[in-house]
């Protein structure tokens, strides 16, 4: 087990380098002058452009600039934003909020998504099954920004049940509405995956065997079927957690959550390349670690897969 984890950690190194290089190249290759538009209707002072170009090594060829950046990263130095703030500190501030938001969303996925999936999967073709199918479908087909705006309008502005936005106070209660909106899309996958997986496993040989052995129905479903059915679901939720961390751009924008998605999107529009690469690098790292964790749980859920 320890060796497996060590090997996986080693494997992350090329992945992190590969991903960050792609992002770094994309961000600094953004068309045009990264300082255009920073000075209103006129070009920026030449001295300013020169200073910034030197500061971010923009004159060097791309691979060289990237290596310098990577070197700084290894020393724990994420660089500075145009505003002169430490990227590292900004990330430390934004991540907890986003993680919290993602956890709230995951909670919704688990409770509602898996719950609905199990109900539907156990009674295929029933009213509940159809209800789950149709409702998840409706949710999938509506863009997040519409769901977000509508819920914000009614629950936040009209009825005042939840705060309309989150702002600086990222308490659990404030995050319920954006958390639900964020989860809405994945809810549908989780429900459908659970349903499909459960239905398939119920016909699997080992379940037949268990039933044939005379094990009680509850035990068969509760232990054997459920455990195996949840494997793809766990894979999905684990992957989704990583995606939610950086994919909450729209939701964080609508509900003004000061998280990573918000930070990255603002940085893309203001061309703050250091911020974008820094944030995405951390995103990739977190994501890979989460995945490792998922794989470990995977092995635990399905004894046929061993990490010897």
């Amino acid at each position, binding site marked *: 087990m320890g060796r497996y984890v060590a090997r996986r950690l080693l494997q992350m190194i090329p992945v992190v380098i590969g991903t960050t290089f792609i992002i770094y190249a994309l961000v600094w290759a953004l068309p045009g002058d990264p300082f255009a538009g920073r000075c209103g209707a006129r070009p920026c002072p030449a001295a300013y452009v020169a200073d910034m170009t030197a500061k971010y090594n923009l004159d060097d060829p791309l691979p060289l600039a990237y290596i310098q950046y990577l070197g700084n990263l290894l020393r724990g130095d994420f660089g500075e934003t145009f505003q002169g703030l430490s990227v590292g500190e900004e990330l430390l501030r934004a991540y907890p909020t986003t993680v919290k938001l993602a956890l709230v969303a995951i909670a919704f996925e688990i409770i509602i998504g898996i719950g609905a999936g199990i109900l539907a999967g156990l009674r295929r073709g029933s009213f509940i099954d159809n209800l789950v199918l149709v409702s998840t479908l409706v949710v999938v087909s509506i863009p997040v920004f*519409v769901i977000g705006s509508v819920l914000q309008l009614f629950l936040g502005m009209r009825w005042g049940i939840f705060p309309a936005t989150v702002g600086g106070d990222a308490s659990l209660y404030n995050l319920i509405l954006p958390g639900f909106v964020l989860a809405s899309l994945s809810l*549908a996958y989780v429900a459908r995956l659970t349903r*499909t997986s459960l239905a398939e496993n119920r016909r699997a040989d080992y379940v037949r065997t268990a039933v044939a052995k005379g094990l009680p129905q509850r035990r068969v479903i509760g232990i054997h079927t459920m455990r195996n059915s949840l494997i793809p679901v766990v894979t999905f939720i684990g992957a989704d957690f990583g995606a939610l961390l950086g*994919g909450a*751009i729209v939701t964080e924008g609508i509900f003004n959550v000061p998280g990573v998605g918000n930070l990255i999107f603002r940085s893309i529009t203001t061309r703050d390349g250091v911020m974008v690469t820094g944030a995405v690098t951390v*995103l990739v790292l977190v994501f*890979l670690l989460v995945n490792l964790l998922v794989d470990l749980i995977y092995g635990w859920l399905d004894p046929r897969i061993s990490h010897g």
Partner: protein
Amino acid sequence: MSRRRGGGHAAAVPRSLAGDAWRDLRRSPLFVGSAAIILVLVAMAAVPGLFTNADPRACDLAYSRQPPSGDAWFGYDLQGCDMYARTIYGARASILVGVLTTVVIAVVGSVVGMFAGYHGGRVDALLSRFTDMFFAVPMLLGAIIVLATFPSTIDTPSWQTIGKVVLALGVLGWTTVARLMRSTVIQVKQSDYVQAARGLGAGSRRVLLRHVLPNAVAPVVVYSTIILGVFVVLEATLSFLGIGLQAPVISWGIAISDARAYIRQSPHMLLFPGAFLSVTVLAFIMLGDAVRDAFDPRLR
């Protein structure tokens, strides 16, 4: 047997998988219903002129945001364009983005995932790391960065604009399919019938195609059918963020994102493109369900 999808070659083989599936499908009301809807949608995308005489680009500001009436069944949008015509013409871009992206990710993802899962070892490690590189970047974020790096201008032909959105989504979208495929292949590989086939001396290609693939394809089909709708929806989100498809392209996504600020005053602007989008998603998922049921040998 002669109308089998597999064509003449399959006719030689009695009761092939594809043949059975096709026979089942034709009897499934789910399949017939969804296929009919998709046919209509595809016709709409291919020949919008069949469904409306109105010009979607003929607009009059005087009609801005007018609700549905006898003259305009779906009302008018912000620019005073006929919503019915816009909705019909919008099918093309939206469905193209959805279908093309799904095809790209399903093919790329399945191939990568299958090889990784089946071969294991070094191949798996290499492919999995490669997958991770793309998997680790959230799809929407990655698409934003790609599209911000390669923006479409007015000189870009509309097929290129659509192509860019497809690639931006596809570049990062395939990884989930690859991972799903890999994990199911690993599962299936260890099952008795695959072991038996191998034990009987079947070559790895034959085992992959005849035994592993049919059994591992179900989750990919489920995922692909759902994700198809998601891509159509993501197209709208990218338009909302100002970097996806752009006018003069007409798409449901653009219409929905335009309508968002007017949900309260002119819900019809959201309702009609939204409903078409939902129906499209619904049709593809139903189709996917039907196909999966037919292809899944364990259901027989």
